[in-house]
């Protein structure tokens, strides 16, 4: 590959576009669908989003296994994996806080950012609040790894 940076950027664009299309197709981009899945006591529970995660993991597992046969990624020097392996308090507390926000509005970061492109006021509000939440966290915990 003559210019790996250009190739990596092109691949990231394609992967992002595929991801964004998948979010719209799967229904993840619609907070009403997400709420219909997470609200188990509504009397009309919609299990369809189980298939989103199931389908995604089903495709990703063989890819991860394939990656273990490669010495390095096709366009990069190495696979960048999270260094942490221990289940610690920030992981669980943070995930619990995230889940509450996800359950209240029906948006997680990917669908919110993808839907942001349509410029709907509630989505813009959500994304701005989400960015504020990220910045607040990073200010508070700036010194910690």
């Amino acid at each position, binding site marked *: 590959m003559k210019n790996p940076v250009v*190739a990596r*950027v092109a*691949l*990231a*664009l394609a*992967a992002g*576009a*595929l*991801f*964004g*299309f*998948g979010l*719209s197709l*799967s*229904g*993840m*981009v*619609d907070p009403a669908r997400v*709420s219909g899945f997470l609200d*188990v*006591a509504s009397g009309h529970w*919609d299990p369809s*989003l189980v*298939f989103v995660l199931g*389908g*995604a993991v*089903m*495709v*990703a*597992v063989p*890819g*991860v296994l394939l990656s273990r046969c490669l010495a*390095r*990624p096709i*366009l*990069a020097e190495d*696979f960048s994996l*999270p260094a*942490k*392996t221990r289940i610690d308090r920030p992981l669980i507390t*943070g*995930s619990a*806080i995230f*889940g*509450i*926000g996800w*359950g*209240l*509005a*029906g948006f997680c*970061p990917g669908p919110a950012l*993808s839907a942001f492109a349509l410029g*709907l006021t509630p*989505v813009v*509000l959500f994304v701005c*609040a*989400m960015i*504020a939440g*990220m*910045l607040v966290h990073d200010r508070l915990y700036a010194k910690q790894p």
Partner: protein
Amino acid sequence: MSPYWPSLFGGMLLGLACILLFLFNGRIAGISGIMGKMLGRERRLADLAFVAGLLAGPYTYAAAFGRLPDITIAAPWPLILIAGVLVGFGTRMGSGCTSGHGIMGLARFSRRSIAATVTFLISGICAATIAGALS
């Protein structure tokens, strides 16, 4: 058509996108992580390109199906703001969200990601169910 098929195919595309990014670029597709890096000092052109692709999602969907995807938001705006802050703060503190932990983490059989995914599914179900009962 049953809503399960588009959900399954859409989910498979999410998995495919994650795997392409991993096999070619060696990067884990985690949206909160990518956003966090873009807000911080570690700015990469590839992350920007991924987000640009993500933003194109509703429009490529419209090009394929002739209509924009349904986006219905029931929550009133104060709740949307609170939820947004919680999602932003929580995903940074928990080092990931539905993509990084939920898709790639589970696919890598990461113990941390399995714990995170179980946690945010449980708290998400509790929050949505309580909110549904009160509204």
